[in-house]
């Protein structure tokens, strides 16, 4: 039982990161009906911006890991990536509005590759060590142990989810976002500037991806320019699992995926699945979901209109 609870904690902290990335996929899908392939690479960029911000800040103040450092690294990275996300949208996707879906998809793949291999050019192909930004400790409650990193993942995700819910439900831009995803033509007829809202959505999603990148780097400190590939794909699976376009669904899907993946590895002896097949879990889930409930757990079933 204790082992199960321990796995659950690990799984939830992994799932929280997936959830943050998945939110970006789902929001962009909501307003543009397209999968932003480069989202996983914005996540990677977030980790790298954090790495350099930490180097710069710590170099300036000679400070070791502290809460202040962590918060500023997180905020800097989120801000930079929000801008990068908006720039990508403006340069690569905006000119392709109303073009065939395939054209946009290919462009997104191009952007994704550009970020990955531009990253190799710029940061170097080898792994970088992400130095700790916050002092870490381990807490024991009975037989369970929970690290401060896991607590940070939970609390950051929790705060960001609350903030996102507030933005989407209570602010004017959030309302505009929902209107746009409901019906773009009607939204623009009501005086909503669609391109501003789309830009904002990209910024918001990219900031969340950057936060996820920092949390990932705190958890797994070796980062490479290709680090965003697998988490990006898995987060997409999480978004599909929750019902793509549905914000609570993305969070739920991320958590379910993280827990399932961790449990499969944790009980690999019992299940007779080698732990190296961990990455396959997401795709098995994807297939099962596509076969039995393509609209996802919380998604509405809609038929495509001509």
């Amino acid at each position, binding site marked *: 039982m204790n082992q199960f609870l321990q796995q659950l904690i690990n799984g939830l902290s992994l799932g929280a990161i997936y959830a943050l990335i998945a939110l970006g996929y789902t929001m962009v899908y909501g307003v543009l009906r*397209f*999968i932003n*392939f480069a989202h996983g690479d914005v996540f990677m960029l977030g980790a790298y911006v954090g790495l350099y911000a930490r180097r710069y800040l710590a170099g300036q103040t000679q400070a070791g890991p502290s809460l202040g450092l962590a918060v500023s690294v997180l905020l800097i990275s989120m801000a930079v990536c929000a801008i990068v996300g908006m720039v990508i949208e403006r340069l*690569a996707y905006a*000119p*392709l509005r109303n*073009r*065939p*879906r*395939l*054209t*946009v*998809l*290919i*462009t997104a*793949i*191009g*952007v*994704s*590759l*550009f970020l*990955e*291999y*531009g990253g*190799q*050019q710029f940061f170097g192909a080898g792994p970088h060590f992400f130095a700790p930004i916050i002092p870490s400790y381990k807490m024991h409650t009975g037989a369970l142990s929970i690290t401060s990193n896991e607590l940070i993942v939970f609390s950051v995700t929790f705060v960001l989810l609350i903030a996102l819910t507030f933005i989407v439900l209570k602010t004017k831009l959030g309302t505009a976002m929902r209107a746009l995803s409901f019906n773009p033509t009607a939204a623009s007829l009501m005086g909503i500037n669609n391109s501003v809202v789309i830009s904002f959505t990209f910024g918001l999603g990219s900031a969340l991806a950057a936060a996820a990148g920092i949390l990932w780097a705190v958890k797994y400190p070796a980062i490479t320019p290709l680090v965003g*590939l*697998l988490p990006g*794909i898995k987060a*997409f*699976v999480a978004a*599909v699992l929750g019902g793509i376009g549905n914000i609570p669904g993305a969070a739920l899907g991320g958590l379910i995926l993280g827990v399932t993946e961790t449990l499969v590895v944790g009980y690999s002896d019992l299940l007779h699945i*080698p732990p*190296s*097949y961990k*990455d*396959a879990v*997401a*795709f098995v889930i*994807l*297939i099962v979901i*596509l*076969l039995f409930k*393509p609209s996802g757990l919380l998604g509405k079933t809609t038929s*495509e209109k*001509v």
Partner: protein
Amino acid sequence: MRPKIYFLIGVLVSFLVWYFVPMDQYIREIVLTIGINIILAVSLNLVNGHTGQFSIGHAGFMAIGAYFSAWITTVGAPTWWPSLDLSGGLAGTLVFLGALLAGALLAALAGLLIGIPTLRLRGDYLAIATLGFGEIIRVVIQNTEVVGGSRGFSVAYGYATIFWTYLFAALTIYVVANLVNSAYGRGFLAVRDDEVAAESIGVNTTKYKVIAFVLAAFFAGIAGGLYSHFKQYLHPDRFNFITSIEVVVMVIVGGMGSTFGVIAAAIVLSLLPEALRFIPQFYQQIFGVSLPHLVDDLLKNRMMIYSLLLIILMLTRPQGIFGGISGRPAFLFKRKSVRADGLAS
């Protein structure tokens, strides 16, 4: 009857080239790579170009064909028929062809299993699902000890000659071009042009998508089998998503749906890395100074050039460099040709 004649001419030429044209190791390697890339690109074009779906997991099917056929010729056949001399001759050739077919069939089976659930949905799902499955296939191979796992796998015989490679390249072109130009093959184009309309007039869109996907996987398996019996060494990392992306770039640059364009792109893009390798040397010889460091690095980072190529093409000429041009060069085919969009040109 015309296409059949061209197919036979292709076979004949590849035989003559293989038999009479002397080549050093370096040239031979490039020529074989081009042949394999033509098979990969033309087969992927059936899915990404003619049927309008989007698969970026072609390397996975190639890996299945490569590993399974290599396993048969290296491990399987010598244990099943220990008395046979497999190093060449009729027995070796038959075993090679059998292995090639078996690898392709296994790849096609994998294509069927992956295609049925994912192809019911729209293209974007397919893109990510195929990317994921390509990676999964690689992970599975990495964990399969009988084919060397992550240590790599040495293949016993280098059966893949220029003759065999180009014979299969000609076969791939023949099958794909004839299929999409046949009455039956109109279904692929219908699915691409308007899926809802196609369905409403009774085209079984899922069936067409699955058929395209399975056929493409089959030929990717053939390409893999040729690759393994040409390099004689396999490593799972060779079949990662970069390989898939390279094939996708060939299809897009060539023009989705244009067989001629895709073949041209496969040739040009296979030669590109070699050409890029010589640019710094030339520059040094002409100007006496070596290239600026940044440019030099950029030339080595082929994927970055590809990614920019993709973005710029999509923004300026989404039909690809050769797209929109008829599927075959007009000077070769006097017969009234039919454009990829189904209108007489």
